[in-house]
Structures are given as structure tokens and as C-alpha cells.
């Protein structure tokens, strides 16, 4: 029933969007798997949703705003950098910028 086909190009594109470096093996594996998942969930089309509004929030809350003191959660330098792979003076450091904006 699988009317979905995933070309390698499409999978590559998704991998780039997700900033994932996939091996060619992984790419072909996903190209095979994804259509299977998509057909498994295709039953959603059996439900009529014309004129139905989407629900993004189940709480019903609206207009929630900040309610804290300035710098209340400020972290000190030690805390900020404690998990960083590379730092230099007071900056996070990265080597070799791979992606452009």
C-alpha cells in the first residue's frame, strides 16, 4: 500500500536540515524505513477533519508572561562553561565553521 517513496536525495536533504552526518548506509536504510512508517500512519486520512481547528495547547492558557526578577537565574562563569568542549577566555570556542547561515 506504500505510495510513499523516498529517494536518496530527499533523505539527504532531511539529514542536512537536521544537521546529521549520515553514512550512505544509514541514508539508504532511512530511505527504506520512512515510507514504511508513513504508510503505517496513513490511517489518519480516514478521519474527517474539515472545519476542525488544530489544538496546539491542551491547557487553555493564554497571555502568560515573565514574572521574575532581573538576572534572577543568571549563571556564573564557572557554571556556564563547565560543560563546554572548548572555551577561550570568556567565550565558547568552535573550530572550523561548517555551516553557513
Amino acid at each position, binding site marked *: 500500500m506504500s505510495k510513499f517513496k523516498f529517494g536518496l536525495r530527499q533523505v539527504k*536533504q532531511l539529514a542536512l536540515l537536521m544537521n546529521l552526518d549520515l553514512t550512505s548506509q544509514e541514508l539508504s536504510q532511512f530511505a527504506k524505513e520512512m515510507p514504511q512508517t508513513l504508510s503505517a500512519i496513513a490511517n489518519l486520512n480516514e478521519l474527517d477533519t474539515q472545519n476542525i481547528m488544530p489544538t*496546539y495547547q491542551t491547557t487553555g492558557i493564554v*497571555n502568560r*508572561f515573565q514574572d521574575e526578577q532581573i538576572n534572577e*537565574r543568571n549563571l556564573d562563569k564557572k557554571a556556564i562553561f563547565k560543560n563546554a568542549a572548548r572555551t577561550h577566555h*570568556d567565550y565558547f*570556542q*568552535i573550530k572550523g565553521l561548517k*555551516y553557513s*547561515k
Partner: protein
Amino acid sequence: MKYKTIIGLETHVELATESKMFCGCSGNYFGQSPNSQVCPVCLGLPGALPVPNEQAIKWTVLIGLALNCQINLSSYFERKHYFYPDLPKGYQISQYAKPLCQNGYLMVNNRKIRINRVHLEEDTGKLLHGQQFNDKGSYIDFNRSGVPLVEIVTEPDVESAPQAAKYLKQLQLIIQYLNVSDCDMEKGSMRCEPNISVVNYNSWQKNQQLPDYKVEVKNINSFRFVQQAIAFEEERQALLLDKNQQPKQETRRYLESKRQTEAMRSKEFAQDYRYFPEPDIPPLELNPTLIQKLNKQLQTIDLPTQRLEKLMKDYGLSSETALVLTENKKLGDNYLRLVKNSQDLDKTKLANLLINKKIAADLNPDDFFTQAKHLLSKKNIDQATFDQTIEKVIIDNPKAVADYRQGKQTALQFLLGQCLRTLGRQIEVEQLKHLLVEKLALKK
């Protein structure tokens, strides 16, 4: 005219709110030591959640109202996904389908520049390249991450570089007068990216159809460079069209050293921001009474056109003088503050004193008037008297002159005082000081 230029302008303005857009960190990051104003939220740590800044939302609506926009009472934030090291969450919380403000306009030289949208989002951190550390690495400071950013996008109604600059100047002033941002391109609190398409004039006249290419230019940080970038693009695209080639839809970078735009490294893939409504932030349902209140507030604020009128009508200033004071808001603010009780002094002359920087603008009224009185009623002393007085003071005070030559500035003050004794205090001290220094240099 062979070609027509079609320009759309995208402007980002940093709001001067107390706290950042989605956390309580101070929003005032300029000049702070790197990574000193961050918390789990603006650092994008696992588990952190955004909570919106109410003041930023109100100020965005205020900007929208000042730009004649319709306000969307129902609005919400969305996630805009892309990867870049200065974007800690890998997505920017922004607006897409339901921006706060839409469909406004700004009149620029009697031309209506339509505003497509005014929406609210967060700023990224700052990525610096390693020149200051003498290496090739990249460095990130997240102080700016999360600062509220208002995005203002025009329709492609702008027709030329000067018109673009005029629009930007007007927009800048309005926002400065609303007191929501210092809107300064040099400080980075105002950024502009023009989108430029050059088309065949005749075909444009026929069907006004937008071409399927537009060139976005980034990395511009002054109004002058906006104009230069547009001018360069007009030429570049015209040359391509001359050869029957269609300009490519792309993003280019402006290089101020060369006054040119250059192609950025081409993206390997088509960008897809995968917008969806931000699940961590409940939607906004703005109360119509809030909009009424903000509109009322807008009436009480002097926008640039009102200030210009006030300066000309109530203060009798010429349109040129009034314009100078209007276009430099701080100067205008100080003028109005100081000249409220100008007593008998000429309002125009007082304006010129401030404009020509003869007196500092940040003085209290008493000191200001003292200095102003001196300067405005100065004696007319001829050059010869000046020369004579200075020569005599130099001859009579060898020790002080020697001290000055050794670098002692107090000696200069002393010599100046000696001159003033003779000439009387009602002269322009700066002019005298200038002459004195010149003479001392000659005599070396």
C-alpha cells in the same frame, strides 16, 4: 530609463526592554563582558523553557500602531529552525503565520511604502572570528542571545537607494521617539537587509509583475552602506540583464572596503525553516482595550513630524534648524528641556549653540544659561588685539610656557587665564585657546 529597481527592506530593531525576550536576564548587553548575562534559557540548556516578555509585546504593538498597521488580537510564537553556532536552541522563537502587526505603511516623500508585517522574535548570540585572538577559531558570546528583536518588513515598494535611506531614517526616528530602542546601526540595535531586483522598465510598466529573483544583501551597518549596496546591485544586475542573463536569486554579503556585494558560499540545500507553533508558549489574546490604551499613549508621544512642527511653530525655528534638532533626538530632547524658560535669549541662537557644539548638551539649565549668556554677548575683539594680548602673555610668563612645552596642561590653563584677565571674560574661550595653542606651537 531602461531598468527599474524594486527594493524591499527588512529591518531588525532591538528593543531596550529591561529583560530579554524569553527570560529574566538583563537585555542591556552592550559593553558587558562576554557571557556574563546568560541563564539556562538564553543559553539553550537542556530542560530550559521560554517565558515571554510582556513589555516587548506591548512595544511591538506600539511600533505597529505608529506604522499604521492592523494588530492581530490573536497571535502566537513559532519555532524557526536552522543550525548556526550562535543560535543555541537550533531554532529561533519568532512569528510566522500570525505576526502581531500587519498591513501598515510609512509615507516617504509622498510615496506610500507599505509595511507587510511587524513581528517579534529573539536575537542570537554573537559569533566572532578569531582575529582579535590571532587565530582562525570562532568564538561565541551569548549575552545578546534572547534580546527582543522586532522585524519590520516592507512590500517591494521602495524604488531607489536614496528613498531606501529616507525610509530607514524615518523609521529609525519614529522608533527612537517611541522610546523603545536606541535604534542605532553602529551599535547593532538596528540592522537592515535590502532585497533588490532590477527589472526591465518597459515590462514593469506593462504588468507590474514581480520577477522571480530577488537579491538579499547582508552585513550592512550604516545607512550610507545601504545606499552603496543598492547602487552596486543596480549596476551588477543591469549588466547581467544587458547580456540577457537573469540575476540569480541569492543572498550576497556587502563588503564595505570594496563597496561591493559578493556571493556568499552557496548553500548546499534549500533552506526549510519547518515553522510550527511554539508549544512552550501559550498563545496571545490581546485585549482590544490594550490596543485602545496603546493608541492613546501614541497620541501623547511626539513623533518626529510633531516635533518638527512644534519646533517651527512654538519655537520659531527655521525648517532647517528644526530638522537638525528633529533628526538628532537626543539633541532635540536637550534643546526642549533647556530652552523651556529661555528668558530673553534668542531661541534660534540657542539652537545653534547646541547644534555647533559650542555648549555641551547635557548641562543643567542654570549652567547652560550662564555659558549661553557669555557666548551670546561676547565683545567683538579684533584679531590684532588677540595677537597682541597673547604675545605679551607669552613673553611675560616664560616659566608657564616652558611647563606647557613639557606637557603640563595646567600651564595652558594658566596662560589662558592670563589672557582672559586682559581681554575680559566675555569672549569665546575656545577661539582664544585655539589661537594661544597655535602661537605657542609657532614659537617652538
